């Protein structure tokens, strides 16, 4: 299965009839107070506040579930930039979503090392088991940087592996019930492979 196309909407007809959107007017653009202060805090960290685009979009995505037009509008309003400039950013990165997705992100690494160890079967099993459940956002991902626990997945940011297809129902049930996901297989518990490293 191929990964989603990053350049969403490239084949949609452009709206040439109306003017490009300008910087949203703060008077008519309501922004949740918490989101506003989080974005402003990020902007203050950099010599040039436009550096805050990624953390700001990520914060808005946490509030809205995805980089919806409304989310982009709010970030643009606080940062004082046009929505188009942020849309360009949001469509570039795999972890910013350009359409509504399930609440729980399950990224299965299907790059070479994981794939050699059975990641494609794992991904198919996860897709199958998650089925139509809209709570899950199951997707194949490029190298997640954890080939030592191949095949692996990142479940709401928590790395687990090596995974067998038998782990799939437990993994999904852990997420559904809010338990720590596959506690025994979490990367953070793993010792260094180098025998000379010792504790």
């Amino acid at each position: 299965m191929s990964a989603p196309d990053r350049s969403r909407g490239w084949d949609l007809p452009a709206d040439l009839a109306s003017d490009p959107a300008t910087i949203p007017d703060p008077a008519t653009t309501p922004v949740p107070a918490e989101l506003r202060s989080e974005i402003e805090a990020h902007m203050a960290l950099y010599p040039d506040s436009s550096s805050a685009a990624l953390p700001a979009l990520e914060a808005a995505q946490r509030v809205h579930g995805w980089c919806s037009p409304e989310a982009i509008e709010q970030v643009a309003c606080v940062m004082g930039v046009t929505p188009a400039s942020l849309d360009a950013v949001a469509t570039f990165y795999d972890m910013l979503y350009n359409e509504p997705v399930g609440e729980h992100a399950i990224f299965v690494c299907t790059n070479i090392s994981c794939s050699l160890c059975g990641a494609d079967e794992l991904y198919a099993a996860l897709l199958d088991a998650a089925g139509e459940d809209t709570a899950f956002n199951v997707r194949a991902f490029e190298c997640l940087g954890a080939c030592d626990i191949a095949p692996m997945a990142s479940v709401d940011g928590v790395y687990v592996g090596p995974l067998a297809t038998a782990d799939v129902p437990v993994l999904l049930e852990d997420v559904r019930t809010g338990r720590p996901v596959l506690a025994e297989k979490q990367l953070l518990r793993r010792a260094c492979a180098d025998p000379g490293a010792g504790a």
Partner: protein
Amino acid sequence: MKILFDRIDEPGLNTLEVYERRGGYESLRKALRMTPEEVLSELEASNLRGRGGAGFQMGKKVSFLPHGAIEKYLVCNADESEPGTFKDRELMQKTPHMLIEGLVIASYAAGAGRSFIYIRGEYAQQADILDAALGEARAAGYIGERILGSEHSLSVVLHRGAGAYICGEETGLLDSLEGKRGNPRLKPPFPANQGLYQGPTLINNVETLSTVPAILRMGGAAYAKLGTETSTGTKLVSVSGHVQRPGNYEVELGIPSRELIYDLAGGPPQGRTVKCWFPGGSSSPVLTGADLDVPYDFDSMAKAGSMLGSGAIIVVDDSTPILDVALKTAKFYRHESCGKCTPCREGTNWTVTMLERIDRGEATPMDLDIMASVQDHIIGNCLCVLGDAMAMPIGSMIVKFRDEFEAHMEKRRVQAPEPLEV
């Protein structure tokens, strides 16, 4: 000899308390008693080559920065996303203060007052650990204004990416850090002259910076005695794929590759042999079972027609068709190409298309030549090396496994359900 992985699993090593108890931040104190020039000469004496992939001498890179009272930046590249590479992850997770100490020392040598750590968004757990360590270091006065009573000040911002391989390319990283799409820039100007916000910028990998405290502690000349003459020191090597004990191993550069793959990582499963291996991440040309005795260092790998890259060995055993490996590799680069340069954008796409054609039984041996020429036309023709990073391994596979590609092609052609229309 373990420098980076010395008792790496000691409980609480990620906290300031344990790190200090082991002598942490003593190298920083030592550095601040020296002049920046003296620190720089230690770095140069160590001959430490960058651990991110290019293998450029770190001390030399620092010396390229212009002098004078101009605002300079230090950026730590923690966007580890070269397939097969996971060494920086283990370092940041288990001993984040070593990175922070190295970062502060490097900023002192470079005269940089602001620094940024660009960590890939997927490493959320490691970013949280690093963030906590930065908080401790700030509270203890190791970063901030007038560090430990010296004239040197440094701010550190932890910046999380959002999932894009190209942001590990240094100029793509800079654009991303400036809040844009991660498109690489034309070089020159190089970041040392015009980097972040158009200012002089030093960019170093996590492992490179994490090695700096040890260099200050041992002395550059003593560090240079480790490894080989032109590949000094120890290196973390991520070994994965068809091996029995995948993981990170710290070795002196120059050991036989066989020792890494077989003795440390356990080699392929019982009854299997090494078909090919990537010595430096999926961007490096593949080597075969005949190359297992090549010493694992920068120059030997280059001489063998490949590269040490990020120090990531991916082993493929004889149970896997080479076409599968080629297709996985090509699809990755197609997905990650930013699309700015035509040879890369189109070349990665057509390589995938042609490989799929082989698998469907619709190709002829001439297609292999076309595919090889596509690779040749990518290399050296783009702003960055992402396209080259696909062209080099794919090109090497076509050369080394041509017979297998042709056999695969023929087998599929015979199996094809309907005759091809002419």
